[in-house]
């Protein structure tokens, strides 16, 4: 009875996703194997050149740099986010939804605006420098804006709410009697945390880390605004291939690696979640 209706209901959405996501992505996959045309177009001869070029030390270096920045941002965001989620979960139950709501709220304000806020703070004529002066700091402050640190701060700031949300979910589901049982059996609070709470909340950590890493490594807005073009990340490189260098096939090849990294991480994350839940969600 129920067997034909779902298909009918799903058709518009699936058709849309196919036309405007699957097909364009397949197109990118195909583009990566063609040659760049003389005047920026596409020369339809098959080649491995674009893929090989990704491994060129220059571009591989940018990949590594991006991965480093994304990984660092993800790590910091996970530490801060887990601590915040843990603290929220430790508050009285009735206050938790509101605290969580306010933790996530900034996430839904405009990304550019949130990034811009850091320009205002870190600027050479910005608020932090100004405050330091007011507090009597005389010397020259190190440059803060247009540095790697600024990019990491911006990424952590932008994605932290999501990490809090991801970590809170398993923490709030944790049965308090389980931790009490651990204490009852003689474990210290720290041992209880390390051997009971932490393993049970790995899925949230994995989700949070993956999310921040994936969004950071492909990001071009934050490096462009807070990094000020001082260094490139993959996102900026892809951007350049399509909008300035006009080398679409190479841009496509870079995107494929971006997707490959993302899929690899997601697989790891699924694995981590399944392992933590004893494989029951498999």
């Amino acid at each position, binding site marked *: 009875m*129920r067997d034909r209706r779902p298909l009918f209901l799903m058709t518009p*959405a699936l058709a849309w996703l196919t036309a405007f996501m699957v097909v364009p992505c397949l197109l990118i996959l195909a583009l990566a194997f063609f040659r760049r045309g003389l005047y920026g177009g596409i020369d339809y001869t098959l080649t491995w050149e674009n893929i090989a070029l990704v491994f060129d030390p220059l571009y591989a270096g940018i990949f590594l740099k991006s991965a480093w920045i994304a990984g660092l941002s993800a790590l910091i965001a996970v530490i801060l986010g887990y601590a915040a989620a843990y603290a929220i979960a430790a508050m009285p139950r009735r206050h938790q939804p509101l605290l969580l709501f306010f933790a996530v709220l*900034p996430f839904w304000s405009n990304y550019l*605006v949130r*990034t811009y806020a850091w320009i205002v703070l870190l600027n050479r004529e910005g608020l932090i420098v100004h405050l330091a002066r007011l507090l009597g700091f005389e010397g020259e402050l190190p440059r803060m804006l247009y540095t790697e640190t600024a990019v990491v701060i911006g990424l952590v700031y932008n994605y932290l709410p999501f990490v809090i949300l991801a970590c809170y979910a398993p923490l709030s589901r944790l049965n*308090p009697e389980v931790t009490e049982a651990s204490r009852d059996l003689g474990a210290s609070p720290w041992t209880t945390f390390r051997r009971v709470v932490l393993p049970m909340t790995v899925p949230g950590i994995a989700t949070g880390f993956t999310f921040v890493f994936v969004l950071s490594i492909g990001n071009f807005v934050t490096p462009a605004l807070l990094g000020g073009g001082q260094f490139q990340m993959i996102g900026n490189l892809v951007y350049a291939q399509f909008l300035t260098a006009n080398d679409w096939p190479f841009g496509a090849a870079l995107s494929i690696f971006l997707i490959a990294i993302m899929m690899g991480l997601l697989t790891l994350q699924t694995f981590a979640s399944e392992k933590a839940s004893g494989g029951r969600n498999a």
Partner: protein
Amino acid sequence: MRNAPLPLMLAILAGVFAFLYLPISVLVALSFNDGGLPTAWTGFSTKWYGALFANADIMGAALNTLIVAVISTILATLFGTLLAVGVEIRRRKGRFLETLIFAPMIIPDIVLAIALLSFFSLLGVTMGLHTIILAHVVFNLAFVCSVVRARLKTFDWSIVEASTDLGAPTFTTLRRVIIPVLSPAIIAGALLAFTLSVDEFVIAFFTAGAGRASTTLPMQIYAMIRFGVTPEINALATIVMGISVLALTLSQRLNRGGLPGQ
């Protein structure tokens, strides 16, 4: 977790909330600063808001954003809801299907952006607001679908059978039972989609085509940040944040206390 040391927990929360809210609070404060500069408070003023509304470029961009957000939200809500119901009444859970539905939410925006740019260019489609709308529906429908599906997880399907058992044909059941029970989630999903669309920059930037005619608000903000910051941007930022926060608050409200018996 009740035995966690309370002062430490409060200190962590205070620190994280300060980190989250200080930067955006500064923007809001600056938007009312007469001098417009972060270095000195020269008095309360709404003049930057006045300047904002007098700026034809910004107002044009705001109108474009509204057009894109409204149309893409309507389409995404319709498709996303049907998709959610379809997926949930299907008994078999296909991994491929799940991936397809999940993909728009996690695919790096730059990848979808350049994929659509290449796709539209090679097809010879003139890009503009319509192509932004087509693109925004892709991820918006996935988000609507996920919100509605979350509601369907706790949905008692036996009420659908009860409706049939009491003599209702399929369409009547959809109209009188399924949609009313899901409506808080559907509206919450729509508000979420609207917010995402209003804020979306990267994909719009790549699929807008050339010319000012299809500039959206985030594109305008990006341009303003990159090429000459004027204090108007603080006012604009405040308004844009306000709209998003309002939509999210509403969406949360609806999805939580909305229906009895959840």
